[in-house]
């Protein structure tokens, strides 16, 4: 049995808009183990991003418990969350969030400059297949390439967890596969616990476990006997 890394219990996130209360997460329970590749599925508005943001230390919950190993993510201060992100978390978003004035290499260096035991930016880029494009600015790269730079940036500090919110949402099937392959590679090579949000059911095939969210809760968890290889996925 692998060690438990993420544990959430009775986790709730309530938004107040005027006098209306919107529950993005309601009493959610969840366990994720070291090195797992998790795919989060669910209808729009079911609370996927909210959950991911809380697990990544970007947002705080209203009530309940959530922890990464011995880090309490609900009670943590802003500074503690910043440190948690800095040391342990890599993010990848649908919009790549690269800095336009920095080259691919420099975008990765942003993270390696402050990390404790980083890879060299070149190694991170080469791992996502971008050896030839290191000195290009984001505007000179395709969407898929930009997303791979974002992945390189996320993995360059050898994070313990990699959180991806619709990483292939803006990409076509072929390009999407290269991005997924990069994620899969990192997960296998470093044992990085990886959570990927997607609307694409096909992608669920490459996960260890698939969590289906509905109404701010994990409604169902499916376990894959065999993880599909990214190259075999089509949509």
């Amino acid at each position, binding site marked *: 049995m692998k060690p438990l890394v993420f544990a959430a219990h009775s986790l709730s996130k309530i938004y107040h808009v005027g006098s209306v209360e919107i529950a993005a997460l309601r009493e959610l329970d969840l366990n994720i183990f070291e090195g797992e590749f998790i795919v989060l599925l669910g209808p729009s508005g079911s609370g996927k991003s909210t959950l991911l943001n809380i697990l990544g230390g970007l947002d705080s919950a209203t009530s309940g418990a959530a922890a990464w190993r011995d880090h309490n993510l609900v009670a943590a201060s*802003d500074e503690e969350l910043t440190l948690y992100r*800095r040391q342990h978390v890599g993010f990848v978003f649908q919009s790549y969030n690269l*800095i336009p004035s920095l080259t691919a290499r420099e975008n990765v260096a*942003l993270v390696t400059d*402050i990390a404790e035991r980083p890879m060299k930016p070149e190694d991170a880029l080469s791992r996502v297949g971008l050896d030839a494009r290191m000195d290009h600015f984001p505007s000179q790269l395709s969407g898929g390439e930009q997303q791979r730079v974002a992945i390189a940036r996320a993995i360059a500090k050898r994070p313990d967890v990699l959180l991806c919110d619709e990483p292939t949402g803006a990409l076509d099937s072929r390009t999407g596969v290269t991005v997924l392959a990069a994620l899969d590679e990192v997960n296998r090579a470093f044992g990085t616990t990886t959570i990927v949000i997607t609307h694409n059911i096909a992608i669920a095939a490459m996960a260890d476990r698939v969590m289906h969210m509905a109404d701010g809760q994990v409604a169902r968890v499916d376990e894959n006997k065999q993880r599909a290889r990214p190259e075999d996925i089509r949509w």
Partner: protein
Amino acid sequence: MVSALDRKLLRDCWRLGGQIITIALVMASGIAVFISALAAYHSLQTSQERFYEEGRFADVFLRLKRAPLPVADRIAEIPGIAQYDVRLVFDVIIDLPGVSLPLSGRMVGLPADGRLQINKLHLMAGRMIGADRLDEVLVTQGFAEGNALRPGDMVSALLNGRKQRFQIVGVVASPEYVFSVAPGEALPDDKRYGVFYVAHDALAHAFAMEGAFNDVVATYSPGANARSVEAALDQLFARWGGLVAHGRGQQPSHRQLMDEVRQQGTMATTIPPVFLLVSAFLLRVVMGRLVASQREQIATLKALGYGSEISWHFAKFAAIVVTLGAVVGVVLGIMTGQAILATYRPFFRFPEFTYDVRLWTPLAATALAFASGVGGALAAVREVGRLRPAEAMRPPAPPAYTSRDPRFWHAVPARWMMAIRGVMAHPLRAGLTLGGIVTAAPLILLSIFWTDALNNMIDVQLAATDRSDAVLAFVEPLPPRVTDEVRRLPGVIFAEPIRTTPVRLRVATQSYETGVLGISREQQLRRVLDEHLAPIDIKSDGLLMSRRLSEKLGLRSGDEVDVEFLEGRRLRRETVLAGTVNDLIGVSAYADRIWLDRFLQEDRRVSAVLVRLDSAQTEDFYAAVKRTPKIATVSFTARSMRNFRETTGAVVLLMAGFFTLFAITIAFGVVYNSARIAYHEHALELATLRILGLTKLETARLLFAEIVIEIALAIPIGLVLGRSLVRLLLLAFETEMFEIPAAIGPASYVLTALSVLVATIASMIAIGRQLWRFDLVSVLKTRA
């Protein structure tokens, strides 16, 4: 029903509130200066015109020694003269009950029937002098106020050595003495100097001037030729000891008024444009940024079928800024104008000092504000109109970043590269910010250096020039033994004579009337100094001159000057300009005393004696002065300095205070807007960095790096520029009679730099607070 677009406008305004307010304030400052300066200008002008009209202010003035009354009839024969008055005028020592200090006064004799043709008096309280009343006196408003005198009170005057008591029957204002200063002084001192009107015979008896007069004032008839009237008057009175007839231009009260009016004009035309330009610039930058950040929204609106409404939408944004600025500016301007006028009141004694804001000034100010608003907004609004939806849906073409950086830059952390490339990719924007701050620093310096200038003037320049405790001036030049007599007065430690004589200087076709001050090389109490405050060696021959006078006459050292001595036999001599003197107040010529005596071909004479006093015996000295005949005026140096500091000093500091506030507004406006724009521009990047694990402090440092570098560059540039601007401004404010030293103390530089720094830090705190409250998730959602 507010349209959706207008709702968006209101929300944008709310979001950009800080920027809107700072820009509007800068604009308001410019408008306020414009309106207040013009209000002061018009108030002075209107009050002056009214009073001159009502009081029939004279056009030409002439002092003489003594002429028999029948000669006056010949004045009427001069073509171009409309009306005239002849009178007796004497400077005397005034003694007020309960005041130990000897005061100075000018006594003017009224015609037998008490009616003046010109320079008519305006009765403010009490009544005019009764017929044949030799013991009644009218006093000017300032003196009455300064000494709390009312009709019925008594005042004594030392007339030709005899103390005479008068009863005050009325308080008056005269167009001739709107601004009245004791001879030899620069500023009014209402406690110590006043003008007094008594019956002609009261003076005639005391000074043995029965059937005679010593002063002529006249008005011109329409179309009169001033020069030929003056020449005819000169000719008529030359044999009666006449000095030169002069026009209003050299009449002290009038000259001071005109200088003040002109300075307010200078103020209204030089300072507001700077403020309006800065605000236009700020508006331009902010709107440029607003449009750039809303490209996609604009495109969407256009795709929805909106047309010119969108351009209007942005134009309205500018209109809101300008309207706010104009309203605040007009109100502020009207109030500031009133404050300026209040400070003028003790200086300029009009019977009625009306506050005159012409309707066109706020209108013009508003129009100027709108013009600068249009200037600032035009580019952005046109850009909105030009944006094509399809094109605008895509983010703007990124600036062409280049990675061909110098080698050593590879050592620079990537996050700093981001800041550096940001500046390099927008050199114009960085330059504009720099320019804005560079403008702010000189404006602050320009406002706070006044204190230095004033202190320099009083403590350094005047103190070094005049080191006496008191100056006794005589009714007429006296033989040298008078110095010994003064020396024997109680309390006098040291006494030194000086000789002054009125002259007319001629160079080519120009002429100028002034006085020559004769002093000796060994003089201790009154010195002539160069610009480094070193005593100038008084050449044994030749004339020294105030720098402003030599410039006015276009003279250089060694050039020839024709000097006519106006006292006595009216000798005329050629001499040379031996050098220039760095005096700040007044215009005069200086010469060696012995040389002057030789030149005048007369025995040694003394016009005034400067003394050093034993402070333990001042009361005895005062009492002695009141008993001594032949003293026309007495002035006390320390008192004059104090008066100077309290009156002009207060005005100057008030104005400087206003301006410092305005200037700091600019500094804050510029810095805040720059920082705010940088923040908006980088919000998404900063959020990304925070997600990647950079701390708040690290991101703040990145955000503010640009502004810190710009400030570090801008402050020194601004200070250097400020120094030049101070010089330029002082040149614009320099009048013939007055000059302000461009002395800027180190403290002012430091204070200026600090003000800019404080403005910067305040802006950073305002924006830093947003950075601190950053909601990472919502930034990710909106992608600003």
